[in-house]
């Protein structure tokens, strides 16, 4: 029986797989195949090995022996003639022979070209110097390991899959590594910016320096590399430079032989080149206009080639591919197409505490692409659905949580949650399981998501499990529960206040445009609801860094006076702790007369209001008040308003402590601060409570043993007595607790949420733990408050008297009567 001769050029992963398939489909009596005599030429002087595992070899986690796919014995057993270290330099298609650089010529009936690809070397000056290596085969790995033995510095050019694996490996070998990447984020072909950013952070955390948008100008050195210079002249010293900027298909041999070649050797879906007896397989082949650099599609090609060699008519059609980075500790996975487009939707899950990020890109109820960082366990599951085009509409709500949340056959999210055992973890951030949630709901009679959050902490951190928590509530309460989804801040976004606050911190967003951009605002410049809220969040979160945006403030806070129904303003100067003096009163009287101010009134906040001031007069009124030592009372501010006091030990026969003095100290300490909503305090000298401290946002009742600190009172639209938060022995301690409490409220409060509403949402116990019990935390909160006050305690009136925002007060033009009235 005349066996045909099959010759293969290249002994990489793709032809290795093709041979396995061939031997399986048409086994020979003594191994190998009955259909062909097989000869393989390989330029690399070795057997077939798992190229993708070179990185663990470099990192020292595996040896070469561990990654061999077919050892020498396999070739003997299967009667394959392997020429190691023979590079084919010529194909003679008329004679049907191939010839190697060592002069061996072999005839073929069928030929497979599987020459793989070569690393691309950017032709910058110095690219051919000693010490510049690429990353493709075992020799490169050995060169890197040798260099690493001496320690020193490595620069890796290219922040793609290969570059990062090289960087991580070199670092494991003890080198100091810098990655230079030309694009704005790492692995841009596989990752979206968010995941690229997380990856960069975790590489940096392990000590690898990453420089994105780095354009290499030259490799410097004398005979041997000494550094890499960028086009902005930054110089990174280097003892070894790894170029990992991409690969080029090895199609030269095909071209030489006169085959159709484009980027790769062009094949039809049956993997045949323009010569029907010649197949091209692997990275060197171009199928359907695409070349491939990952093994999965190459293995599919291998199967097609094996079948067709045996007379079949299989076809290769490219499908989505998936990538995993093989760097221990960096778990990322990307699959399919995750670009943004109008007709696509996305589902994103972020869990900053666990460093988890997942994004699914959907179109017409099918998953197109997935990017995962941190927890990649569901990667293959999503990938499978991408390839199948599975209709996900039924499991949409729980899809992002992965396979574990889909109840077997049924994709009903309720059924899926019902099927979970009591010890199934629902909230990953806070480690709350299903049983705990349902037990608390029943025990405490909880009825809302907010209640459940307050009492169990479930979904109180990143919020990504909110949907699941709601389902547990639904399961427990039945129809009694009306899901109220997270209330978006306004119609410009779907995000609620808490998400926005969290993301401002997590993503280091430091301006309103940055927030709108990064969080996908639906309007170009927000609205009168979200802009003031964002302005507050940014000012509270980035003291000293964020520049206040006056245009995002309500008029009162912009001109530091209260607008009245007729467009005039009222002006309230501070009277610290409600104390005043003849000089201050005289100045107020003078101002009222000088500017014809129609009304002067004592406010409910123990100070004096000048009502009906014309806008143009405001700076001059303030100048006079400033001259008498008075500053803005901020009667307009979502910030500190008043600290009311009673006369205390100074005068009162019942006074136990200096309530007036403490009130003044508190007002001097807190003034100028911005808070989510207005903040009013009072200090009463004894429990008779003449300053009405027990209906304030924060109230102090002086007692013989010190100071009882109260909070969360209300006496406006709602009426509530305060809650006793704790006790302070000294004034200093009282001030520290109140500073810490104010800061906690500033950091967690939603815009326009008074303290009492924040307390209801978060829970007294949580607040008490944070500002009374945990001393270190109290001190940290206090310090953050003190720091932010450095930038806040500037009298806005004085600034405007000095000329700030002058355009606010003067009209742009006064038209002469003649011009307007015809």
């Amino acid at each position, binding site marked *: 029986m005349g066996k045909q001769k099959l010759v293969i050029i290249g002994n990489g992963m793709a032809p290795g797989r093709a041979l396995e398939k061939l031997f399986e489909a048409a086994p020979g009596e003594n191994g190998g195949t009955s259909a062909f005599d097989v000869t393989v030429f390989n330029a690399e002087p070795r057997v077939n090995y798992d190229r993708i595992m070179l990185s663990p070899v470099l990192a020292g986690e595996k040896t070469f022996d561990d990654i061999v796919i077919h050892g020498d014995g396999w070739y003997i057993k299967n009667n394959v003639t392997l020429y190691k270290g023979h590079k084919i330099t010529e194909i003679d298609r008329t004679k049907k022979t191939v010839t190697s650089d060592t002069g061996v010529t072999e005839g073929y009936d069928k030929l497979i070209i599987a020459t793989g690809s070569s690393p691309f070397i950017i032709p910058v000056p110095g690219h051919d110097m000693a010490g510049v290596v690429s990353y493709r085969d075992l020799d490169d790995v050995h060169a890197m390991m040798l260099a690493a033995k001496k320690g020193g510095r490595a620069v890796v050019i290219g922040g793609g899959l290969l570059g990062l694996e090289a960087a991580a490996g070199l670092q494991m070998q003890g080198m100091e590594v810098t990655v230079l990447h030309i694009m704005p984020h790492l692995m841009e072909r596989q990752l979206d910016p968010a995941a690229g950013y997380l990856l960069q952070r975790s590489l940096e955390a392990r000590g690898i320096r990453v420089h994105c948008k780095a354009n290499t100008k030259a490799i410097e050195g004398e005979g041997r590399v000494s550094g890499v210079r960028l086009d902005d002249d930054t110089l990174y010293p280097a003892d070894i430079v790894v170029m990992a900027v991409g690969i080029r298909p090895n199609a030269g041999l095909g071209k030489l032989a006169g085959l159709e070649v484009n980027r790769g050797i062009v094949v039809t879906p049956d993997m045949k080149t323009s010569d029907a007896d010649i197949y091209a397989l692997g990275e060197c082949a171009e199928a359907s206009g695409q070349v491939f650099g990952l093994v999965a599609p190459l293995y599919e090609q291998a199967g097609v080639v094996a079948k067709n060699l045996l007379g079949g008519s299989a076809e290769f059609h490219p499908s989505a591919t998936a990538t995993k980075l093989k760097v221990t500790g960096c778990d990322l996975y990307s699959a399919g197409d995750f670009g943004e487009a109008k007709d696509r939707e996305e589902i994103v899950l972020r869990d900053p505490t666990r460093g988890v990020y997942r994004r699914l890109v959907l179109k017409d109820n099918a998953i197109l692409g997935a990017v995962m960082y941190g927890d990649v366990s569901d990667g293959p599951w999503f990938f499978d659905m991408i390839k199948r085009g599975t209709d996900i509409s039924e499991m949409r709500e729980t899809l992002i949580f992965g396979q574990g949340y889909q109840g077997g056959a049924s994709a009903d999210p309720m059924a899926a949650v019902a099927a979970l055992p009591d010890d199934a973890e629902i909230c990953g951030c806070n480690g709350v399981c299903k049983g705990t949630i349902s037990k608390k709901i029943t025990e405490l009679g909880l009825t809302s998501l907010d209640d459940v959050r307050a009492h169990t902490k479930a979904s109180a951190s990143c919020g990504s499990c909110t949907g699941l928590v709601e389902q547990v509530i639904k399961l427990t309460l039945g129809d009694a529960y009306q899901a109220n989804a997270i209330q978006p801040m306004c119609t410009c976004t779907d995000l609620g206040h808490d998400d926005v606050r969290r993301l401002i911190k997590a993503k280091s967003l430091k301006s309103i445009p940055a927030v709108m951009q990064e969080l996908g605002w639906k309007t170009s410049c927000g*609205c009168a609801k979200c802009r003031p809220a964002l302005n507050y969040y940014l000012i509270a979160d980035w003291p000293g860094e964020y520049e206040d945006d006056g245009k995002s403030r309500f*008029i009162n806070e912009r001109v530091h006076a209260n*607008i009245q*129904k007729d467009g005039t303003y009222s002006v309230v100067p501070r009277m610290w702790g409600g104390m005043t003096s003849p000089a201050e009163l005289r100045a107020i009287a003078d101002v009222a007369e000088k500017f014809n101010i129609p009304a002067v009134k004592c406010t409910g906040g123990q100070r004096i209001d000048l009502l009906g001031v014309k806008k143009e007069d405001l700076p001059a009124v303030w100048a006079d008040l400033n001259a008498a030592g008075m500053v803005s009372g901020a009667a307009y501010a979502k910030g500190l308003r008043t600290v009311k006091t009673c006369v205390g030990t100074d005068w009162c026969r019942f006074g136990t402590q200096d309530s007036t003095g403490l009130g003044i100290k508190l007002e001097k300490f807190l003034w100028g601060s911005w808070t989510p909503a207005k903040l009013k305090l009072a200090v009463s000298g004894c429990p008779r409570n003449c300053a009405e401290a027990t209906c304030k946002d924060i109230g102090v009742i002086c007692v013989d043993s010190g100071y009882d600190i109260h909070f969360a009172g209300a006496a406006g639209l709602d009426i509530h007595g305060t809650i006793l938060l704790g006790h302070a022995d000294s004034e200093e301690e009282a001030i520290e607790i109140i500073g810490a409490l104010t800061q906690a409220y500033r950091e967690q409060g939603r815009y326009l949420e008074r303290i009492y509403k924040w307390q209801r949402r978060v829970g007294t116990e949580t607040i008490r733990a944070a500002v009374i019990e945990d001393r270190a935390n109290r001190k940290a909160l206090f310090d953050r408050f003190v720091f932010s006050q450095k930038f806040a305690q500037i009298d806005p009136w004085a600034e405007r008297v000095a000329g700030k925002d002058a355009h606010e007060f003067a*009209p742009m*033009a006064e038209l002469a009567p003649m*011009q307007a*009235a*015809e």
Partner: protein
Amino acid sequence: MNAMTKEWIEVGAVDDVPVRGARRVHTQAGEIAVFKCADGSLFALRNRCPHKGGPLSEGIVHGHGVTCPLHNWVIDLSTGEATGADKGCTPQIPLKVEDGRIFLDGAAIAKLAA
């Protein structure tokens, strides 16, 4: 004088009006507010909210709208109409820009007084 005369009255420079802000122009016929949006477009409206006369110049400017400072009606700057569920309209004053200077339509201002 003829009420129909097309007369453009210069009121100041484009740069005088802050972005996402407004300036007032005093006239015999009452105040006019000149707004500049984030995209640089300029609009002039009578400075009286159709609700209870609030000074629109003091409101927060967003998109091509302004939120009245008194009770939060949102007025469309390009038409002077209240948006959403609210009904009402404040007169719009034609405006043009030449050489970085802002001009208002004198006849339209005169009509406000009428």
